[in-house]
């Protein structure tokens, strides 16, 4: 939108009431807004995925690079797919496929459990909002 001369003049008239200190205070206020948004709204971002098999930690992988892991269990191999910022159980030999149908996990604290094959995938972060089991 291109401001017309009337709107431009109107804005200039109001801006004339701003002193340089006011601009400084406004910049500080906006910085406080941005900082609080970053600090308070990104706590649920996951840092790494913890994969367990048979109750023991099988692997801890960071969520920066895409990769695929094959985790052995009593029924066969569970395939876990990692992508930047998210992870999922791509395939599982279990009968009901609950952990596969959960889809992508992308928040810290989220867990997908493939109980028959004794494999679990959990995302951990600086601050977990909730976990998948206990909404």
């Amino acid at each position, binding site marked *: 939108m291109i401001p017309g001369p009337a709107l431009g003049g109107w804005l200039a008239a109001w801006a004339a009431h701003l002193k340089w200190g006011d601009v400084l205070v406004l910049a500080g206020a906006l910085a406080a807004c941005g900082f609080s*948004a970053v600090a308070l709204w990104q706590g649920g971002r996951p840092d790494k995925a913890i994969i367990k098999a048979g109750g023991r930690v099988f692997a801890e992988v960071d969520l920066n690079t895409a990769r695929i892991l094959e985790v052995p269990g009593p029924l066969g191999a569970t395939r876990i797919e990692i992508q930047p910022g998210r992870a999922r159980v791509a395939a599982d030999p279990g009968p009901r496929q609950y952990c596969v149908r959960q889809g992508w996990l992308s928040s810290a604290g989220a867990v997908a459990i493939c109980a028959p094959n004794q494999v679990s995938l959990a995302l951990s972060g600086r601050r977990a909002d909730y976990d998948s089991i206990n909404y």
Partner: protein
Amino acid sequence: MTPSTTEIVLTPTAEDHRVARHAAAAIVLTVAEAAIPLPLPGVKPGLANIIILVVLARWGWREAVWVALLRVLVSSLLLGQFLAPGFFLSLTGSLASLAVLGFAMHLPGRAFGPVSQSVLAAFAHIGGQLLVARAWLVPHDGVFYLVPVFALAATSFGLVNGLIAARLLQEASAPAPQQAGV
């Protein structure tokens, strides 16, 4: 008629009249503002603060305190909020912003105008309210999730209110009140 010995005579001073007039204006703005539907409890323009800023600049901090606290008390009575949670939030916000204004008014006037005072007071307002809300009404850190929203509201409404106050002050201090096409 002999004057009663128990009669109390109150003679309002010019200052009393001034406080009453300004408080009335602030109360009207608060009540009018209460009719605006708000997306979130707590996010409101706070137009009454324009009056507080003008009183602060023209008549000093003491009178601004009077106007602000009368505004909180009377508007809560009018809106049926007296001693309800909203009243205490309003009172805390008001006290916090008055405290900050007491400091902000001493900032060098060459660089810092009403806009600075308005924005700082708005931040003090939400800060005080959030602390009371956290300690008493919503005893959970979840309230702080809304801080960015409140901060943005404080910045924008603080700017707008400060600009209006600056303009009112400029017009009030103009030498002759000529008919300006406002």
